[in-house]
């Protein structure tokens, strides 16, 4: 273990950002974790005070601080509500990197992050192997939601599966169905780079398909390079900046290899990471590379945001007030709190034929997923999920829509555990239902009965 002096020297880099917190404590009003535990070390003010305490040599327990930093959903509710504008997520991710560098990455995390995540082809191979094997260990539990649970608790790693009702890996990940795409725009429409994201690729491939269908329907050219890597958030949140830097270089090279007007994703988390974290965490790279990262980040948009602000939604004759299917929308933290995107997904849902939007209470309260938080602290995570679940059930809806595949997984688990008959969908899936094939005009299906035209324009 390196000495404390060295750690404090590294942490000095955070001092100017840490001092901005005036300890007003208003983050206590919005932190989903604090609402469960009431512990000061769980809320942003407490964590910032711990980092400050280390820096001021008030105490010396970097391991303990790192542990508490990891008890965080990284939802950004605190930052969105902070009067002083403390850059909480940036501080936490940088601090995790410093403390992890000091404490060293655990062997398990090293295996997962550096052995798999950092190598996109290897991750893809492992995932397709796991997709085949999972059938042996799990059984379907809720048909509407499409969740499964463990057949035999003892045969699977307790922490990963536990009592979860999880969305299994798709039989065929999206990159198998469509490894790459480069379609030309029609009638002066823009051309976008489409970043798929791991969860959509491996668990929700039909969201990627629906996104491409909708983009093509609107005449948008789509560039989807082969072999995309993870956006890097699992590495960042584990403090593994080496893996993050590797993924960043890989993705930037891929995504800028064709001239496009925008970079679009259908994953709230990926969008926010590319938009907010890529430039910040690339700050130690050379200037030329930083400029490339910034250029990509500047043109990145969430799919809903792109459709509403750059294209214009298809107008439907039907009055949404009399639509037969009620849908409620959950605001992913990374869309609303990080990027201020909340009106656009609602506009997309309202534009979709047959759907009536009903708002739930606290639509923008975190669902409790928090990426690896859910793996490390499943009980806390699912307690937060139960609050969300109750608000969804109270609307009497038959569809829950949200713009983030990670939220979809968490909410699927909570709804499935509650025995709910509510489908969990991405807004783009609802919108895509009224979009027909640009070639043969037939409706598009996502269950294998497709016309076969829409993958290429």
């Amino acid at each position, binding site marked *: 273990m390196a000495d404390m002096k060295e750690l404090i020297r590294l942490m000095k880099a955070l001092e*100017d950002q840490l*001092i901005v917190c*005036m300890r*007003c404590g208003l983050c206590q009003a919005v932190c989903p974790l604090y609402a469960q535990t009431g512990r*000061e*070390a769980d809320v942003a003010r407490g964590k910032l005070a711990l980092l400050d305490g280390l820096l001021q040599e008030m105490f010396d*327990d970097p391991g*303990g601080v790192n542990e508490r930093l990891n008890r965080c959903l990284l939802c950004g509710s605190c930052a969105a509500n902070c009067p*002083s504008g403390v850059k909480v997520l940036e501080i936490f991710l940088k601090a995790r990197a410093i403390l992890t560098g000091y404490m060293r990455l655990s062997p398990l995390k090293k295996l997962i992050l550096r052995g798999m995540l950092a190598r996109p082809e290897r991750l893809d191979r492992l995932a397709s192997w796991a997709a085949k094997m999972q059938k042996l260990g799990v059984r379907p539990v809720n048909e509407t939601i499409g969740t499964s649970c463990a057949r035999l608790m003892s045969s699977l790693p307790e922490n990963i599966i536990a009592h979860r009702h999880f969305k299994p890996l798709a039989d065929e990940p999206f990159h198998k169905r469509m490894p790459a795409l480069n379609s030309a725009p029609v009638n002066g429409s823009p051309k976008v780079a489409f970043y798929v994201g791991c969860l959509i690729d491996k668990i929700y491939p039909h969201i990627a398909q629906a996104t491409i269908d909708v983009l093509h329907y609107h005449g948008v050219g789509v560039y989807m390079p082969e072999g995309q890597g993870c956006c890097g958030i699992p590495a960042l949140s584990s403090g593994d900046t080496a893996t993050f830097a590797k993924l960043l270089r890989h993705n930037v090279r891929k995504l800028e290899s064709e001239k496009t007007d925008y970079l679009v994703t259908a994953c709230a988390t990926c969008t926010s990471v590319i938009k907010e974290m890529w430039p910040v965490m690339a700050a130690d790279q050379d200037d030329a590379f930083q400029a490339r990262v910034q250029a990509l980040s500047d043109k990145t948009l969430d799919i809903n945001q792109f459709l509403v602000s750059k294209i214009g939604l298809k107008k439907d004759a039907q009055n949404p007030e009399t639509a037969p299917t009620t849908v409620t929308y959950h605001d992913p933290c990374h869309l609303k709190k990080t990027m201020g995107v909340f009106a656009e997904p609602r506009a997309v849902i309202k534009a979709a034929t047959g759907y009536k939007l009903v708002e739930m209470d606290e639509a923008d309260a975190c669902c409790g997923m928090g990426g690896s938080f859910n793996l490390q602290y499943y009980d806390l995570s699912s307690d937060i999920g139960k609050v969300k679940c109750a608000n969804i059930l109270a609307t009497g809806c038959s569809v829950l829509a949200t713009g983030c595949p990670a939220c979809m997984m968490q909410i699927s688990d909570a709804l499935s555990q509650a025995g709910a008959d509510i489908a969990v969908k991405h807004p783009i899936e609802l919108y895509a239902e009224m979009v027909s094939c640009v070639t043969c005009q037939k409706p598009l299906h996502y269950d294998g009965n497709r016309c076969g035209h829409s993958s290429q324009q």
Partner: protein
Amino acid sequence: MISKALIDEFEKIAGSENIFTDKTDRVAYSYDAAVLDAVMPALVVRPVHNEALGQIVRLCNDNRLPLTVRGSGTNLSGGTVPSAEGIVVVTNALQKILEINTADMLVVVQPGVVTAKLAAAVEAKGLFYPPDPGSQAVSTIGGNVAENAGGLRGLKYGVTRDYVMGIEFFDVNGELVKTGSRTVKCATGYNLTGLMVGSEGTLGVFSEITLKLIPKPVHYKAMMAVFDKMDDASQAVAAIIAAHIVPATLEIMDNFTIRAVEDFSKAGLPTDAAALLLIETDGHPAQTEEDAAKVESICRQNRATSIHVAQDAAERDKVWLARRNALAALAKLKPTLVLEDATVPRSRIPEMVREIQAIGSQYDLPIGIFGHAGDGNLHPTILTDKRNKKEWERVEAAIEAIFDKALAMGGTLSGEHGTGIAKARFLEKETTPATIVYSKRVKKALDPHNILNPGKIIG
């Protein structure tokens, strides 16, 4: 160092999951919102029922352990900064609203209930709990009562003190003491309720609080008046009060604050204005409109250059958004923000504003002035960087100068933030040596071993 055996006893009372012994967890209870040095407690306990609370107080007294009660730790005078080797008792698990009685218009709560949640719960039943301190989204009722917290509505509706009907608290021996009653009138015994309000955890530990509620006003009228001269604005405040009109809120903002808010929120505020008054009347529709009209004409008589009267709820929200953004906007300008709350009799507002401005230039410090002009409670807000030692010395001198001016006008060191640690050494200036001696005798009688939040109020 607290012994293992003693920790075991706390654990027996509160449960092992509600005890924090780890240094890292304890650091998270070493501060509040005041700009003061952090002090790490020896142990943190978070009781989940009132019985445990009483037992904890007793155990602390038996073992001479300093005890600091903490709600949400939003205190601005250091009242929740613990003693070294002391115990922090966190009340945020005692968060039940025990009764909302619409017939008697009262509410009974545990101390850890969050102010805004209480306000929303009673409002859902058509009732109104007016005290609205700036931290109400997180502050607890227990903390509000212990600090006698105020807010924007002090002028017409008073402060926390005016709504406390009764308190049940544990004395230093852990015995339950009952004060006040559920009746509007109560003339029995000492007014122990009055003694406990604002006692900052130095005389007892609250377990249950009964609060008075009032009917919700049915009509509002909000307006924003713009002034070319700060003097004109503060004269208008004095004139409104002198005309015996009592708006629900009467807030002032100086040019420095206006520019900060406008930079922050782009709300379209007049950045060249010297001052803004944000005023709201409420109550019966006829009275509300009449008061608003009078206020408007008084503002014009005092040379308001323009007056914008909110025509609907959305416009009303816009008026108040500017005020709500004031602290956040100022906070973004410098790393450290010192929010003072020295208060003067209302008629002295024009003079006090001038004095604060003079102090700002004398000590070469940016001071934003905003606050509850209508009740004399200004918030001179000093922007600085506490790491700059030379500047920090000037900040401390400026604070003392503000105190002196306020006291010279017959004012007080604190309108709503409390004495805590920050103002304890100045209290004698506001009172008399005998007052401090008397207070210390009360404290000594009720807490002979000085374990209840030692060092606060009377030093």
